[in-house]
């Protein structure tokens, strides 16, 4: 197979990680620095490096036009990756909004290091490469040619599969309708912000706010715009109207959070990667479980610290809060049940299990999927509990990372008591209010008998929701329980 000589390039690549001068290309193969220059974000290369090893790839190959391979994640379908290195086009089957993704960069790094053999292209790569060539021939706009240089800045933000790094529009039709979906989401976010603006203009005393229809219509439009998570948030917000004497404050703060998300969602491409992922999840960007399971697992002795069931519209949501014994990191596994379906009861509060968890991306990255479990659950009675001040500091740190977060886990040693007409958890440094109407207050009081005990709770903007009392001989699950007439038999 003959090799096409790569156009010789000289110049300087400016990159947030380094400024690299390169002068030549050997036999068409790129230099590592040229791959670096493609990175859309400072940490893209850092994310790609662990994947740029032959053990993470199968069926790699290259020829005069392209490089291809299948990136193997843990337990998921491998991603097909194809790169046209002559015209700098890439395709990866992953769902990342950032292009080039870490898989494409990793394949290029592998190739640049001479770890990809020249072989005949498989059908999926040949089809992709020929498709790009055919489009080029029929298109009046030529694709960018040659490897990246200082004159070809790397793109940022959302892009479809096959986006050229020079910023040219996608050259292949988007088979998944991704662009259409992004446009619909953006329109939905704009509409949401306009609606919020109207609320500010007319005021919260507007009688329309007391009608559920007002909120329901907005929520329905957000569902149509495929920002389902915001729709859920709006429905929850509707329940705050008129609930308690301070409802105006709570509703106003939540409207502020919606504005924050609507604004951030419209500027996803300009946000740092972790924050962009968190915003994407918070507005309802779907991430396939297979993609999450393709990530690197967090393996630890996971202590099941608490459980909380909450009805959200027509779905019962179970949050199971886990904390790694070694890492000390929190994680949250979600389970959903519609009417008469069952919630996941495989995690028992007060036990620990050696398992893999796969985290969703995000600034906090609390949400995770449970992977393989390497041991049977064992009782976990000795938990580390901090002070009220430590819990507050941790909540502040997390809220600063993801301001719209409305539930965070804390484990603190404190005593339940009454202060200023409401229940609080107190220690010798301070106190934190318990959410009014939290179902576990009586059980917490009975189990503690008014003494300081380790308590796992969910922090919410309205106060703590006690989930678990960790006694010396057992953990007592006192978290909110799903209505048994709604869900099926669940623990």
């Amino acid at each position: 197979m003959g090799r096409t000589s790569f156009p010789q390039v000289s110049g300087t690549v400016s990159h947030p990680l380094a400024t690299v001068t390169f002068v030549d290309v050997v036999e068409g193969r790129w230099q590592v620095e040229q791959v670096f220059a493609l990175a859309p974000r400072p940490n893209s290369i850092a994310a790609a490096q662990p994947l740029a090893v032959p053990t993470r790839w199968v069926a790699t190959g290259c020829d005069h036009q392209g490089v291809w391979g299948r990136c193997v994640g843990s337990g998921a379908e491998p991603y097909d990756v194809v790169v046209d290195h002559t015209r700098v086009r890439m395709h990866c089957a992953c769902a990342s909004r950032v292009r080039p993704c870490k898989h494409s960069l990793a394949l290029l790094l592998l190739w640049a290091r001479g770890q990809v053999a020249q072989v005949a292209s498989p059908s999926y790569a040949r089809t992709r490469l020929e498709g790009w060539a055919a489009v080029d021939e029929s298109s009046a706009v030529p694709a960018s040619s040659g490897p990246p240089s200082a004159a070809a800045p790397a793109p940022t933000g959302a892009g479809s599969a096959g986006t050229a790094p020079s910023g040219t529009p996608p050259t292949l039709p988007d088979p998944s309708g991704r662009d259409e979906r992004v446009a619909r989401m953006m329109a939905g976010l704009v509409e949401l912000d306009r609606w919020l603006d109207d609320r500010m203009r007319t005021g919260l005393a507007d009688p329309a706010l007391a009608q559920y229809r007002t909120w329901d219509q907005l929520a329905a439009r957000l569902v149509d715009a495929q920002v389902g998570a915001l729709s859920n948030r709006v429905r929850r917000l509707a329940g705050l109207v008129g609930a308690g004497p301070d409802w105006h404050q709570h509703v106003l703060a939540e409207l502020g959070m919606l504005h924050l998300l609507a604004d951030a969602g419209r500027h996803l491409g300009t946000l740092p990667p972790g924050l962009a992922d968190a915003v994407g999840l918070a507005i309802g960007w779907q991430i396939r479980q297979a993609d999450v399971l393709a990530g690197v697992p967090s393996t630890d002795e996971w202590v099941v610290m608490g459980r909380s069931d909450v009805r959200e519209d027509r779905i019962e949501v179970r949050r199971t809060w886990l904390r790694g014994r070694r890492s000390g990191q929190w994680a949250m596994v979600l389970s959903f049940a519609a009417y008469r379906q069952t919630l996941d009861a495989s995690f028992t509060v007060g036990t620990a299990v050696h398992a893999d968890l796969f985290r969703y991306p995000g600034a906090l990255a609390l949400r995770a999927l449970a992977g393989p479990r390497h041991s049977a659950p064992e009782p976990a009675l000795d938990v580390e509990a901090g002070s009220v001040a430590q819990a507050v500091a941790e909540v502040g740190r997390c809220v600063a990372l993801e301001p719209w977060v409305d539930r965070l886990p804390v484990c603190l040693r404190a005593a339940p008591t009454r202060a200023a007409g409401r229940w609080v958890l107190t220690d010798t440094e301070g106190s934190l209010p318990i959410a009014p109407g939290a179902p576990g207050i009586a059980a917490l009081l009975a189990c503690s008998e008014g003494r300081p005990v380790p308590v796992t709770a969910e922090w919410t903007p309205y106060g703590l929701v006690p989930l678990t009392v960790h006694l010396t001989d057992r953990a007592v699950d006192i978290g909110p329980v799903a209505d048994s007439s709604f869900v099926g038999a669940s623990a």
Partner: protein
Amino acid sequence: MSPVQEYWDQMVTVALLGTDRREPPAAPPGGLADLAADQPLPTASQRLLQQVAATAVVRRAGVQPGPVAEVVAPPDADPRPLTPPSATATWHRVVSDWPVLEDEWVLTVVRNGHRLAPELVPPLLARHRADGVRHARVRAAAGPLADWMISWSPRLACTSKQRVVPELVAEVPELPITPDLVGLLSAPPARVAEVVAGGLSSGALAVSHRPVLVNLVARVQPAALEPLAVALDRVDPSRSTIGIALALADLARLRHHLLTELEPA
């Protein structure tokens, strides 16, 4: 009051009235004012929305512990051993599947010298607040913790005006059983198994007998429970009474379990 809190309160007032009627307040010096200066917005409603979002984040991220609160005095000590954790699970099963056993479960706790696990005290007090006898029974099982809990949570107090007779508290209530079966309450275990399982097999006892059979199993002497469960398992599966036979076997086993589980150590 902190400047941020004061600013927030002013914004709540403006948000209630709407910016069509009132201008948003000026942000206090600092980050919020900087934000307003860096991102000037054309309309009052947009400015308010921007400041509401930013201030809500500041308030949540900057949450501070409240003042130290005085802890409550604990209840008087109760030297009785707690019911074992497995008994808590048994109580949940009794309540959901065979509530006819609940009176006996609570009385067994008291008679065998246990005290209720604390996590069961609030739900049991709340469950029986309208029944003076049962509420008194729960208080006996819970010890000083019950009155202490009621003092902190008055909704757990008994609402019944009925006078509580101590004899009723100390005994399981009688359940209606037909005269032809009442003799089985004190009959030898083998005889109980023979009559009940045999009757269901032969058709002498039918589905219509279910309520009295449940009452019988709930009150029959404990020694008869195991043989009865075994005999009920052997009822011909093709008989129409197989469903009630299996249900009664489950009831017999659960009752046997709760009685043995709560035996004094």
